[in-house]
């Protein structure tokens, strides 16, 4: 079992635990098999992740244009780092912002 983010959930996966909405209401019980409608309902109720049987913790991979590699992304991140040097790069939220900014830049360049 492992937490899988909403963007990486697929039809046919098996739930290892109940899925609750933000208020704690039960949406789908453990053991259920996901279908397309469930995915829509999860999004509607703001579910961000689900516990899936037989998976390790898994985040949706960064969406990169076809001919961009992870190295390219890391290079752009390095390039942008000086721009973030006063923001407090030790904090995970700032790191995430840097990653998002780099992703945006890479995507724009390859449009």
């Amino acid at each position: 079992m492992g937490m899988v983010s909403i963007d990486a959930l697929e039809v046919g996966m098996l739930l290892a635990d109940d899925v609750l909405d933000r208020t704690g209401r039960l949406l789908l019980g453990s053991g259920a098999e996901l279908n397309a409608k469930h995915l829509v309902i999860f999004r509607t109720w703001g579910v961000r992740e689900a516990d899936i049987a037989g998976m390790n913790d898994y985040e949706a991979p960064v969406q990169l244009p076809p001919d961009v590699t992870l190295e390219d992304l890391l290079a752009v991140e390095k390039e942008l780092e000086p721009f973030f040097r006063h923001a407090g790069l030790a904090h995970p939220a700032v790191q995430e912002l840097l990653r998002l900014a780099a992703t945006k830049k890479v995507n724009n360049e390859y449009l």
Partner: protein
Amino acid sequence: MNIYKKNQATVQSLIEETRTVYSLPLFYERLNETINHPRSSISDIVKIIIDDQGLSARILRLANSPLFGCYSKVDSISKSVTIIGTQQLRDLALASSVIKVFKGIPEDVLSMTSFWQHSISCGIVARCLATYLRENNVERFFVSGVLHDVGQLIMCTTIPEMVQQIRDYSVNNDKLYYKTEFDMLQFNHSQVGGALLQSWKIPASITETVTYHHTPRFAKQFPLETAVIHLADIICHSMEFGHSAEWCVPRMDENAWERLNMPVSMLSTILKQSEPLIHETFSILAEGI
């Protein structure tokens, strides 16, 4: 450095100088009074809005924009008042009025397009964050975001040479702009902006967020609102949605981040939601800048 001696400007002197030139239109006061009056109806409010053709058009376009995601076409002011809500309408009218007030100020120091792009993006991101936090009046966050850097405009009109000096000094010495302002003037643009809005009698839920958007730990009455604006400002700087006088991503206050109680993975979702809204909202609000 002799800059320290030459400097006589204080927050108060800047505000007084600004107030004689720029004032909120009488229209906003009338709207505010009517909305606050317990016995006024939607049609009273509509009557006031219709008086201002420019605003009517902007309100209609906003009501039809993805910001409100209404399926059917909103074709009358009274319908849009019902959809947007009266309190929210007042806030939108405020944002739109302030943008208009500062129209046509010299662009020597700051590009206005870029400035409003930054401000409006900050409003949109703040609004999305507020939606995530399940806050009830998200438009309030939108206005606070739009107005958060208004102090920079005041300083650009009243002490442009000083602003240029501060900017050069901050870039040359690798120091954040708002910190350099404080070093050279003993105040910064957030205080100036807050003071102007206060002198315009804008509610504290907006002025406080503007005053403390770089130092959210000092916000006493509205710490959550201030934290949201603080974060939205940083997000917009990071993604380079327009530019203000700040040239680097400002420092993030960790406590402000904690206060939102939001997982880091939410940031990409917030961006996904706000990015498509920015362009359209900008074109509606900043028309003709």
